[in-house]
């Protein structure tokens, strides 16, 4: 800010202090009316193209599928009951397991990394952080495809291993649960590292010194001091990874095989291939419910009673 603006500001502030009543009068007026006018386009757009579609999906999930895939408006819970069938229990369970492991690996890999970022000299920190964010800004599809190039039978890993004479037949690395996990961790790692970094950076190092002065071995200092104090970062990172991982369908679609179908793939499949929108809608609502539960846990653990998150 320039000096000219600064001093002008001081003067303005002084003049306003003399007229508190007038300034309040000016800013009030018909606040409601003007606010609603400015918000009308947003309410219209999000109402029509976000809320109405969601309500539509909720309604569809409670109806019966006709012989030609059309919606027959007869109320039923059958679409939800189908999730008790072993096949779908398995898909739901697998989605949770994959999301869990993705989160756990991101946390295990990301924590020491974030710790490193928080303790490098300040002048290098900006660049190093930027380097974490850059891959996160590239298209998810492309980032996932990069792993196809690396993992497939004619891919980088197999070519190198064969050239070195370590294997004679290419390994099948692609289209496995392992490939899906690698792709997910790769896609979501920055979501974990950034909040971790933020909370580790705030850590008061005198507390760590106090702990070791009092005779605690490093691992105990970590478990009893460092970890509890960086918990907000751990929770934020966990939510930021777990929620999108739960609804992911690109990664299992490109890197996984038939055995790695997740709820996201199920939804896609029901809407586009099987054309059972009623069942697909029920799956969508279940996914939304899982996400909402996750968000509420997040809001609670930060103590703002959902105010900032869900209104």
């Amino acid at each position, binding site marked *: *800010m320039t000096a000219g*603006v600064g001093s002008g*500001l001081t*003067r*303005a*502030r002084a*003049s306003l202090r003399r*007229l508190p009543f007038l300034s309040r009068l000016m*800013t009030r007026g018909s*606040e*409601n009316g*003007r*606010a*609603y006018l*400015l*918000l009308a*386009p*947003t309410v219209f*757009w999000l*109402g029509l*193209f*976000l*809320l109405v*579609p*969601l309500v*539509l*999906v909720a309604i*569809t999930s409670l109806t019966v599928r006709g012989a030609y895939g059309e919606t027959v408006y007869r109320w039923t819970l059958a679409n939800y009951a189908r999730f008790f069938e072993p096949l779908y229990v398995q898909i739901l369970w697998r989605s949770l397991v994959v999301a869990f492991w993705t989160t756990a690996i991101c946390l295990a890999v990301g924590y020491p990394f974030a*710790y490193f*970022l928080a*303790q490098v000299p300040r002048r290098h920190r900006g660049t190093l952080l930027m*380097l974490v964010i*850059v*891959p996160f*800004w*590239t*298209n998810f*599809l*492309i980032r996932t*495809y*990069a792993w*196809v*190039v*690396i993992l497939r039978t*004619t*891919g*980088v890993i197999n070519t190198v291993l064969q050239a070195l004479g370590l294997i004679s037949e290419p390994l099948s690395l692609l289209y496995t649960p392992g490939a899906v996990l690698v792709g997910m961790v*790769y896609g979501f*790692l*920055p979501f974990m590292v950034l909040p971790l970094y933020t909370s580790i950076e705030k850590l008061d190092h005198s507390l760590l010194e106090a702990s070791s002065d009092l005779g605690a071995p490093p691992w105990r200092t970590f478990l009893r001091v460092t970890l509890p104090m960086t918990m907000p970062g751990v929770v934020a990172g966990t939510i930021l990874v777990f929620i999108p991982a739960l609804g992911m*369908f690109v990664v299992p679609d490109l890197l996984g095989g038939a055995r790695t179908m997740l709820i996201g793939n199920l939804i896609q499949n029901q*809407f*586009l291939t099987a054309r059972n929108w009623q069942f697909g*809608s029920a799956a*969508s609502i279940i*996914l939304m419910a899982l*996400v909402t539960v996750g*968000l509420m846990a997040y809001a609670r653990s930060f103590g703002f009673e959902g105010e900032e998150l*869900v*209104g």
Partner: protein
Amino acid sequence: MKRRILGLYSVLVYLFLYAPIFVLILFSFNRSKLNATWTGFTFDWYAKLLHDKPILEATGNTLLVALVSTAASTVIGTAAALAMHRFRFAGKRLMEALLYIPIVIPEIVMGVSLLALYVMLGMELGLPTIIIAHIAFSISFVTVTVRARLHGFNRYLEEAAMDLGADEWTTFRRVTFPLIVPGILSGALLALTLSLDDFVITFFTAGPGSTTLPLRIYSMLKLAVTPEVNALSTVLLGATLLLVTLSQRLQKKEL
């Protein structure tokens, strides 16, 4: 010692983050069609892109969708940001919640629910349906970005202008707007990036004649993967990075 291990470990993490992208770029210059063995340097795949009709068409679609949806969501989102920043009004918390939904909703749910709406309304899937969807998910991101800018904004500047006799519209035009322009531009660039990049929601709202670049990449991946995909990915990567850098610069600009 401990420090050195941590440093070494972090080099490995950076390697994990960047190796795939470098491999991808590297093989866009490889002569061999079978990606993994290096048989010589070539620009052929980039040249091929320039003559690939579906890709050129997809590029046109992508840009059209991105520009229209960015323009619309920037205007709508900025108006919302001004209202949310400035006024107290009944239903503000509800409004916060509404603006929050597109940011946290699983993309796939937003995609299929829009598809359900379009089909129910009998709308033909195509560029307009994609644009509508992109506006819907961009508004919130614009609002968040512009609000962040407004947050560091000094109300006294406006009040000073009005004290000095400017009416409300003049104050907005001469004081408020110029000061929040970087925030608006940065929000617009974010919307542009999101639109250019979006696959999932576009996937469900696109029709046969309205393929965008991410959709094209997806179908190329599903059919036959040639280094042409790598070349296209590299071009998109460069474009995204450029936009993001620009957006970050604007966001950081001092008030």
